[in-house]
């Protein structure tokens, strides 16, 4: 069976699962809902695995399989920048190539494990079916995103995962904070989507196609023929527009603020959407558009700097957080920063490699934290944990593996991918020693906050129960027990992945052939002709030395955490007292949320209030002078922001209202008046021609 021609079916199974659970889920027993949802994802995974296997059996140059299911959009013709006329035609089509293979396996594989885990984790929740319906809808959208063979389909999936993210963050919609977080995620992403859509338009205007293989070909040919030069302003703007989209979806500075709040969603959602898959869509998109970025070195520099900055900023905030999920959320932002750092220095394969390993260990860490929260009946504060090592051993051991992996312990997944990124940041022609330095420091901080989390959760004495707020449960330390099998087995599989996933991408000094992962992706990340790419000339010794440095930094992080939180010193208090200003700033996330509130949210609220006033008048249907008066007062009030933001809105509103008045006036109901208007209309038409024609 040729599975490659059937890749269009891969997203379809979760879609069917969504429809079944969405319509009938309420009436189905919970196990049936879970089996349908997880089963759909499992079938997708098996199909994807089969298809990827068949792809890998082909010779390297044929490893790109396009399947166009049907003409989806057949728009009119448009002029491209080169003056050619191209039809704006988009297929509902799918592409399996090395890059999308990696993504589809990560999404379906880890997605399946998280579905299984959710069956245990969410069992007691109301709206169990709703959860799984949304999760399957998410899988459908995500698979459309990664398998789509053009930018428009990618955009459809992009918006779809955004919607599902919104729905699932707000899953506990009776909680105000959850609703707010959902809205925040949605609105912040809008900014990114705006950039992404501008980028898509620019791509079409430049090459007259949106299909990935064609676009890549035309960029390569154009560069070879000298139509495009590295650093053309147009290309830089295009790359940056696309990158704005990526910063929204992948939570980079300045649009990262939604991700920590997104932890209001159920923990499996955080694992699946806000750690392993959706948030990496931006990385995937930039990697997919690598030919554009290669032609825009200035944009690459921006990507690298933003990535490094995000990594550092989020990691420092992560140090002081006390909510177990928030620590992991900032850690995710920070690790995504690493990926963009890799993309920005031209190491696309390294970025995707880290994407893959990160998916394993971060999904694992989130699910472990979920298991802890489950065991403690929704306790998320690290300060109320401790001593859980022997009570939930499976969670403890798997979480330890995850922590070791993310901290960069040699031999585990995180080590290989992070090291590759750091090495490229240092050695690549786009790299810089400062980028490497930031990366190395972040590695140390990562190790510190992760071990802090591990020690505070599992070691020492159980600190919960004493000052407990949940009177309704009234449980003490004795009520804590390990999660069910449906939850622990996925943890073990992911732990195995975190141990082993790195070995597909071993560096040259460890395996003779170099990274097989990199070789697999090579056809996608082919260098664009004419772009000077100097090969770094460093010996293996330097590379090994660099690796040793990053391991040493991680060890330092570990020891500080060990002495502070395992040995129970009062260092944490002393240091935070000594650097009170910095500590408060970090605790308050550098006041970025407050800044955005002040800059954008309050201004938007001002606008909203005006719209509301306008609206209430329209609804009441009071057509009187008040509109004119309010318009006047708005114009006269002299408030600069109100002028700009709302003046226009109110003016339009007033105009429409004023315009509707004569319309209603002539709608008298008298037939003779109607006939009169018709005659007048006829006269106007006639008059127009008599005067309009010479």
């Amino acid at each position, binding site marked *: 069976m040729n599975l490659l021609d059937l890749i269009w079916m891969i997203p379809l199974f979760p879609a069917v699962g969504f429809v079944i659970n969405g319509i009938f889920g309420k009436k189905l027993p919970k196990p049936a809902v879970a089996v349908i949802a997880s089963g759909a994802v499992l079938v997708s995974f098996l199909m994807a695995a089969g298809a990827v296997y068949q792809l890998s059996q082909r010779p390297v140059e044929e490893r790109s399989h396009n399947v166009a299911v*049907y*003409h*989806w*959009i*057949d*728009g*009119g*013709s448009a002029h491209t920048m080169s003056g050619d006329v191209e039809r704006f035609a988009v297929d*509902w089509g799918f592409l399996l190539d090395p890059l999308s293979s990696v993504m589809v396996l990560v999404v379906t594989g880890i997605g399946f494990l998280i579905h299984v885990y959710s069956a245990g984790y969410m069992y007691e929740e109301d709206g169990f079916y709703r959860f799984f319906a949304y999760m399957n809808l998410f899988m459908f959208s995500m698979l459309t995103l990664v398998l789509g063979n053009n930018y428009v389909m990618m955009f459809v999936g992009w918006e779809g995962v955004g919607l599902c993210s919104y729905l699932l963050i707000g899953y506990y919609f009776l909680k105000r904070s959850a609703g707010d977080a959902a809205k925040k995620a949605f609105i912040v992403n809008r900014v990114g989507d705006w950039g992404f859509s501008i980028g898509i338009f620019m791509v079409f205007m430049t090459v007259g196609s949106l299909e990935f293989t064609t676009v890549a070909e035309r960029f390569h040919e154009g560069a070879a023929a000298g139509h495009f030069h590295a650093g053309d302003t147009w290309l830089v703007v295009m790359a940056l527009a696309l990158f704005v989209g990526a910063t929204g979806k992948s939570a980079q500075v300045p649009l990262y603020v939604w991700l920590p709040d997104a932890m209001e969603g159920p923990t499996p959602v955080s694992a699946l959407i806000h750690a392993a898959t959706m948030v990496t869509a931006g990385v995937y998109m930039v990697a997919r558009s690598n030919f554009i970025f290669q032609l825009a070195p200035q944009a690459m520099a921006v990507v690298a700097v933003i990535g490094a900055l995000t990594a550092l900023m989020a990691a420092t905030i992560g140090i002081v957080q006390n909510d177990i999920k928030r620590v992991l959320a900032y850690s995710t932002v920070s690790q995504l920063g690493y990926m963009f750092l890799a993309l920005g220095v031209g190491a696309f394969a390294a970025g995707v490699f880290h994407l893959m390993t990160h998916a394993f260990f971060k999904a694992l860490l989130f699910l472990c934290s979920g298991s802890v929260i489950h065991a403690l009946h929704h306790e998320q504060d690290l300060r109320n944990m401790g001593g859980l090592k022997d009570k939930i051993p499976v969670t403890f051991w798997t979480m330890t593996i995850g922590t070791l992996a993310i901290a960069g312990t040699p031999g585990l997944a995180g080590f290989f991918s992070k090291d590759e990124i750091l090495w490229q940041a240092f050695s690549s022609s786009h790299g810089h020693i400062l980028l490497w330095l930031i990366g190395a420091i972040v590695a140390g901080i990562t190790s510190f906050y992760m071990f802090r989390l591990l020690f505070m959760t599992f070691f020492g004495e159980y600190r919960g129960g004493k000052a407990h707020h949940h009177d309704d449960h009234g449980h003490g330390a004795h009520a804590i027990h390990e999660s069910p099998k449906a939850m622990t087995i996925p943890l073990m599989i992911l732990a195995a992945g975190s141990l082993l996933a790195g070995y597909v991408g071993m560096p040259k000094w460890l395996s003779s052939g170099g990274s097989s992962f990199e070789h697999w992706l090579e056809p996608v990340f082919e260098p664009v002709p004419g772009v000077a790419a100097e090969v770094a000339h460093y010996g293996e010794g330097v590379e090994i030395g660099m690796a040793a440095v990053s391991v040493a930094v991680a060890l330092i992080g570990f020891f500080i955490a060990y002495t502070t939180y395992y040995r129970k010193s009062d260092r944490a208090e002393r240091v935070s007292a000594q650097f009170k200003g910095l500590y408060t700033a970090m605790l308050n996330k550098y006041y970025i949320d407050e800044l955005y509130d002040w800059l954008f949210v309050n201004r938007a609220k001002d606008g909203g209030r005006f719209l509301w006033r306008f609206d209430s008048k*329209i*609804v009441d*249907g009071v*057509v009187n002078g008040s509109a004119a008066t309010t318009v006047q007062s708005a114009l006269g009030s002299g408030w600069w922001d109100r002028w700009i933001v709302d003046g226009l809105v109110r003016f339009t509103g007033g105009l*429409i209202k004023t*315009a*509707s008045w004569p*319309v*209603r006036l*002539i*709608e008298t*109901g008298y*037939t003779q*008046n*109607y*006939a009169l*208007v*018709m005659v*007048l*209309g*006829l006269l*106007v*038409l*006639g008059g*127009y*021609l008599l005067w*309009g*024609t*010479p």
Partner: protein
Amino acid sequence: MGQFFKLADLGAIAPELELILWGMGILIADLIIKDKKKLGIVAIVGLFVSGIFLFRLNGVEATAYGGLLVIDQFANFFKLIFLVAATLAIAISMKYLDIERENHGEYYALILFATMGMMFMAGAVDLVTMYISLETMAIATYVLVGFLRSSQRSNEASLKYFLLGAFSSGILLYGMSLLYGISGSTRFIDIAEALSRRPLNDPISLMAMITLSAGMFFKIAAVPFHQWTPDAYEGAPTSITAYMSVAVKAASFAMMVRVFMVAIYPMRPHWVAIMAAVSVMTMTVGNIAAITQSNIKRLLAYSSISHAGYVLIGLIAGNQTGLIAVAIYLLIYTFTNLGAWAVVVALKRRDVIGEHIDEMSGLFFKNPVAAILMLIFLLSLAGIPPTAGFIGKFYLFASAIETGHNTLAVIAVLNAAISIYFYLRIVVAMFMREPNEKTELTYSPALLTVLAVAFIVTMFIGIYPDPFISMARLAIPAGF
């Protein structure tokens, strides 16, 4: 010219002929059958049989009756729309007429006759055929609008519609007589030939064109010839409003395409200017007036006015994309709008008028499926993907941009944005207000079928428009 009447010509009008006979049969059966709902089913069967005859004409290109009538893919495409619209309209009527206590056999016969008139309109390439088929449709519709004999509103609406319709027919006939005077023929092709030999600014031709256009604009309810629409739509039985808003409009557009793209094509620079102005006015007035309506029937009436404004864009563009857009838009509009009207029909109960926007309050909590379907129809009317309405608007606006009418496209998009406001007012009422005791629906199996069909087609075209686009492309060959 040859022999005027050939026996083979009967085959060319078989679908229409069948409808006439079937309609007469229903009138006779009305005397015998007591349960009038059965007549509705009989009428639907008749429409299906007509559809079979139509299907047999698929792909046939012929001229009948010595050039009075043509059979081509364009005509067939529109005839299909009329048959579908009539079928759906009858399906939503049966229960509704019972509630209004006006279930009579004539109703179904009249719908069949009106449909027959429309089908001739789509094939007419001669002024006389065109006018007679137009009046066949119009007179049947006048009666249908006033079908609620005991309702003063319905009678008033019917009379207004009739008077203004007669008035506009007078204007139309004036233009037609001038065209006959210029060309000495009633055939569209001869008229085009005669016009092209005269100077472009010839006052007689201009006069003929203006009066002819004015008559046409009345039929599609374009501003400033639109004022009968809200009154007639509000007063007519809701099922007839639904039928009129899609089928009468589609038939008038089919006729307009033939007249404007063939008969008075030589005057194109002039009529494009007029039509652009009318299109902008129609969209804008329709949408702005709709904002302040609190009666759903009036609101949807204004909405249908604005939609006529959008469709005119396709004619203004006048290229293949534009005409395809007209055809596909009308097809989509048929399903979407009938679906929305079906929900309004379901609101009607014996003691409740079911027209005020408040009567939709909290529909979502009482009847989530109906509310969600209505939401989808309204989104489609507003042109939001992935519903079919988006595809229709996309093609219309794309055709405007292709032919360089950028300002028009911008105005149209702005108008589409305004329209979202009043469509969402209904949505707000359905989803965000408390239900009141009036919010109930009356269903019949037929009505549910209509809702399901409208929903499926609306979503299907939105997601997979390809087959319908190819169908429209067949109907409108390049260089129509």
